[in-house]
């Protein structure tokens, strides 16, 4: 299919196009998931791909564990596999194959083989879906060696990072926040696709560094605008990749601003912020010039009630408050 060089498209469409490009150019790519044929995928990402690549777009039974296992078998025998997990919450059923198999295999088999699998996981709340359909679980995977994690926030990065993830020889967890699917943005097909692992400076500022990823980056940008109106300039770093973590980009910013806020939707305990803060403290302690604050979900399940949910999940105001708190030690 021919696409325009530069165009404004949705995040959903960017992912579709990355899948289309890879499936269309490489016979050794397989895409598996539940309801990804006629239904078009639970979030409409796969659309008509099943008609265009009928043998390699495979609608599976509701068997996340064995679908992930089949992806391991396929990837060990010469295929690159994309698995769509309908809601990220359901990835718990595929944990054994991701953690004990896919992520271990290159190392434990002495480098003979690896598992180029991308696990696409629609994540996130703010939609009133309750505790089993709203989670962002990246914190669970940060400590899994052999796995990579990306969570792009822009249309351009969604497209580029997905292609990069598919051509990475390792298993990659690819997190798509559900609220981003309809967001529009510019895509440039000439955009140079780099390897996974680089953060992006979403906004420059000298007073406080705000580190986030996925939908949190958009909340952080809105907070930065409010802060700017109050005379505080935030530097917003979009991590894009959570593993490997581009701690160099964060450290360079903190050395400049001396202050740090982390923003995530997942649980604060053992989360991305916990990891970023630990590493920054290890690397940049002498530069830190104010309280460090993590914004995220307190350790509670996500309630279904929209009101209760909004109390639990981080919002723009929480980030503004956090940024102000970093300006002093009080």
């Amino acid at each position, binding site marked *: 299919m021919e696409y325009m060089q530069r165009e404004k498209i949705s995040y959903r469409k960017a992912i579709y196009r990355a899948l289309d490009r890879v499936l269309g150019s490489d016979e050794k790519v397989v895409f598996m998931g539940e309801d990804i044929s006629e239904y078009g995928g639970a979030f409409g990402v796969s659309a008509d791909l099943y008609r265009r690549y009928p043998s390699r777009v495979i609608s599976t039974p509701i068997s996340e564990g064995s679908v992930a296992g089949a992806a391991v078998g396929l990837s060990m025998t010469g295929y690159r596999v994309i698995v769509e997990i309908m809601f990220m919450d359901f990835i718990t059923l595929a944990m054994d194959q991701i953690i004990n198999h896919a992520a271990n*295999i290159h190392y434990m088999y002495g480098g003979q083989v690896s598992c180029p699998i991308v696990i696409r996981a629609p994540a996130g709340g703010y939609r009133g879906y309750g505790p089993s359909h709203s989670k962002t679980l990246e914190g669970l995977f940060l400590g899994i060696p052999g796995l990579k994690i990306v969570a792009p926030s822009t249309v351009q990065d969604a497209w580029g990072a997905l292609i990069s993830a598919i051509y990475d*020889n390792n298993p990659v967890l690819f997190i798509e926040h559900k609220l981003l699917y309809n967001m529009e943005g510019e895509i440039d097909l000439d955009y140079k696709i780099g390897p996974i692992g680089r953060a992006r400076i979403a906004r420059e500022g000298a007073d406080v560094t705000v580190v986030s990823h996925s939908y949190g980056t958009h909340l952080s940008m809105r907070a930065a605008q409010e802060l700017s109106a109050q005379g505080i300039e935030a530097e917003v770093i979009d991590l894009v990749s959570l593993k490997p973590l581009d701690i160099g980009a964060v450290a360079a910013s903190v050395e400049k601003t001396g202050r740090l806020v982390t923003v995530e939707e997942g649980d604060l305990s053992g989360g991305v912020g916990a990891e970023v803060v630990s590493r920054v403290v290890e690397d940049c302690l002498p530069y830190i010039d104010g309280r460090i604050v993590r914004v995220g979900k307190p350790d509670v399940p996500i309630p279904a009630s929209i009101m209760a949910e909004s109390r639990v999940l981080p919002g723009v105001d929480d980030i503004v408050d956090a940024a102000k708190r970093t300006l002093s030690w009080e």
Partner: protein
Amino acid sequence: MRQKIKPVEAALAAAGALNVVEMYKKALTIRYFEEKVDWLFGRGKLGGTTHLCIGQEAVPVGVASALRADDYMVSTHRGHGHLIAKGGEPARIFAELLGKSEGYCKGRGGTQHLCVMGLNFLGTNGITGGGIPIATGAGLSIKLSGDDRVAVCFFGEGASNQGTFHESLNMASVWKLPVVYVCENNMYAMSTRFARISASDDVAARAGAYGIEAAIVDGMDALKVAELAGKVVGRVRAGGGPALIEAKTYRFCGHSKSDPRTYRTREEEEMWKGKDPIKRLAAAAAEFIPGSEIEGIKRGVLAMIEDAYDAAEKGSDSSTDAALDGVYAKREDIVPQGNIQSA
């Protein structure tokens, strides 16, 4: 009374003789390998744990006799026999168990994570039931590639209670994948007798629910296993969809290196030892070759195992520096379409 052998049948019998003798040698290799491992553990020469297949040798040997080198095999925690049957070299398996860099996986995998891509052996597996969907994926891979290989998936009867077993059989059946599921039913999962934790008497019965043809075979008789496997593998190779073989067998040893076997009687063990697959194969081989040759084979295999161990022991310890390397594959590390790489 013996029938007169016609020329064609004589040729067939000669081929059969070759097969029987080869199977005997393979089974003996597995037995002596496992006995050596047991001996090494007893003397503290090996770390970690191990699960031996002493008593069960007929199953891997019989099944492998029906396979081609390019067929895939997925194994279990009790997998040394599977790998040897697929062509694994005892010296390199010993090296792996000893943590030497000459091991198939540079000593990083050990007994339960032994993969040999060069033999299309996709790994022993430390997770009960973990290999079942991997074999299913290998079957899907073969189907997409459109060739006539098969994937063989070994698992224990205990693993048939895992979700992966049921999910995988269903998927393989729906997609008509070329997978042969081979259950080694040795009656006990660790200490748990199958009857105590299973709603069906046989694992084979479960296959019916997924529209998969299943057959039960005497897993102490390599020739019977080979005969059945020949038929089943042929059917699967020809595109007939997945199949299941349940081999009734018995491990003569404990579950793992430390197992007092309080859950079964010595009488039961003796009864099963009376069906020793090695003795049966020796008797079958004796139909074709003289007893002195049988003795010669025994001595030869024993010496080969001892040499393999000595060679492995002289290998280099996997470097502790390298322990931190190779967590991630680089772009150029892996040939994306190369499913056969030298190990």
